[in-house]
């Protein structure tokens, strides 16, 4: 991936637009709405962020924010224990796995878990990095059963292995398919399917 640094002019676009909006007098243009406030953590998110370092301390998490989500990154060997804690700790009780995605950053693969707690109504993004040479992340099907098909899909499209998965068969592609079409290295158009 070409590392794209955030360009300063892009970051300041909302304020620029706001200032040009005041000076714009062309009658044909519809009046613009004021630029919305930046999206950030809500009250529950802030509380969760403050709370997390306690129960997750043994897993050495990196706690960060992305818009309205609290983002936690852990090492893959600590993933299973961290997930078990996230699910069972009464102050966290993340009982629902919303989504499991694999992202190919070319220098690494990242598995992203979007979690939701019904009891506390808070949400969390959990991230795990794995290598390109032998991408492998322990399966969390033991913690959230719903991860089953998402992990099978992750193997199909990205070749990330999930050791511990009860039924690691091909799900979306057909069995004879070669390669991992989700990866950035997989060609877009010029490949022969049949």
């Amino acid at each position, binding site marked *: 991936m070409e590392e*794209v640094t955030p360009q300063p002019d892009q970051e300041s676009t909302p304020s620029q637009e706001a200032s040009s909006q005041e000076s714009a007098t062309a009658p044909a243009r519809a009046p613009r709405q004021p630029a919305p406030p930046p999206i950030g953590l809500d009250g529950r998110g802030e509380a969760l962020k403050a709370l997390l370092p306690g129960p997750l301390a043994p897993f050495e998490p990196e706690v960060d924010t992305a818009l309205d989500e609290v983002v936690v990154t852990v090492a893959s060997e600590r993933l299973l224990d961290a997930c078990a804690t996230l699910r069972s700790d009464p102050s966290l009780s993340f009982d629902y796995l919303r989504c499991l*995605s694999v992202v190919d950053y070319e220098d690494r693969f990242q598995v992203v878990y979007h979690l939701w707690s019904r009891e506390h109504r808070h949400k969390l993004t959990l991230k795990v990095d794995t290598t390109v040479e032998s991408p492998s992340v322990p399966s969390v099907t033991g913690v959230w059963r719903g991860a089953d098909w998402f992990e099978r899909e992750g193997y199909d499209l990205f070749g990330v292995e999930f050791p511990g998965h009860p039924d690691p068969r091909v799900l979306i592609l057909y069995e004879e398919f070669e390669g991992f079409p989700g990866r950035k290295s997989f060609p877009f158009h010029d490949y022969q399917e049949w």
Partner: protein
Amino acid sequence: MTEAQRLESVDILVNMGPQHPSTHGVFRMVLWVDGERIVDCDPHIGYLHRGSEKLSEGELYSQIITLFDRLDYIGNFNTELAFVGAVEKLMNLAVPERAEYIRVILCELNRISSHMLFYGTMGLDAGAMTPIMYGFRERERIQNLFEAVTGARMMHNYFRIGGLREEPPDDFVARVRGVLPAIEQGIEEGDRLLTYNEVFLARSRGIGVLSGQEALDYGLTGPSLRASGIPDDIRAIEPYSIYDRFDFDIPIGENGDTWDRYAMRVEEMRQSVKIVKQALEQMPESGPIKAQVRGIPRPPKGEAYFRAENPRGEIGVYLVSDGGDKPYRLKIRPPSFANLQALRPMLRNTYVADAVMVLGSLDIVLGEVDR
């Protein structure tokens, strides 16, 4: 040979689909059958896999809307909203009021038309031919309205990043108001026809039961989750767009069986009518329908996860942007995909004749399952 050995039966493997008319698309399941009883089931998906996620990485943001139309081809507006919502969230873009109202009206009408199709096919699955006529009659009214607004009956490509593609027709509000009484009447007629029909009750009560905890474990969302007694609706628990401005109820079931999953959708149609009525009342009469986005939309570097309530459940879009005009990665969390995982535990120990009913009650759309 003992008596037990002599009576021992052998599991028979029955293949159903992928071109079976009652699998609601190209879905295949392999059933292990002991007599009439299903011992185990193995669902196979992927026959409709078009690589939408990978394709998205090569398209401009505004072009991806068409791909989303083709995911859930019964609830197009709701699916479009999930994508434009994710991009707007990442760009922190304010959508004009009027556009939001038109979006909500279209989405809720779309929910009704989707559930109407479900209602009809549910009848067919149970062996009743009439409900599909009722369902399609109401669906047709809504599809005609959509055609007037967007020019297309199904693949609308109408939502844009920051608003809508173009003004709806001048008589849009009048048209919606005109069509609502007929739809309301249609829902009640359909309800009277099928819901408490004795044969239908006998076919659906207590079949394919899923407890609330199991439903959560398997990641079910939408009406199928609420049928198991879990009152989670993204429109209420995490309102997106302007759903926090409407007053509506969330129906929940008691038993989590096939009948409950059906009844949830009938009740949801009534609630959608309620939302459309409120939206028509509150909607500003004039105003812009699109926020001004300069040139090609380029969301800043970063990531956003946007969730929306699709007729089938929670559709999530995980968007990773590197600051360019195309997404770096776009992951779609389709509701039917997660719902379908629960088919296996639901089908165990039911009868072969009920398999179609149970599958139908999940209301899957294969375009979305396979992407």
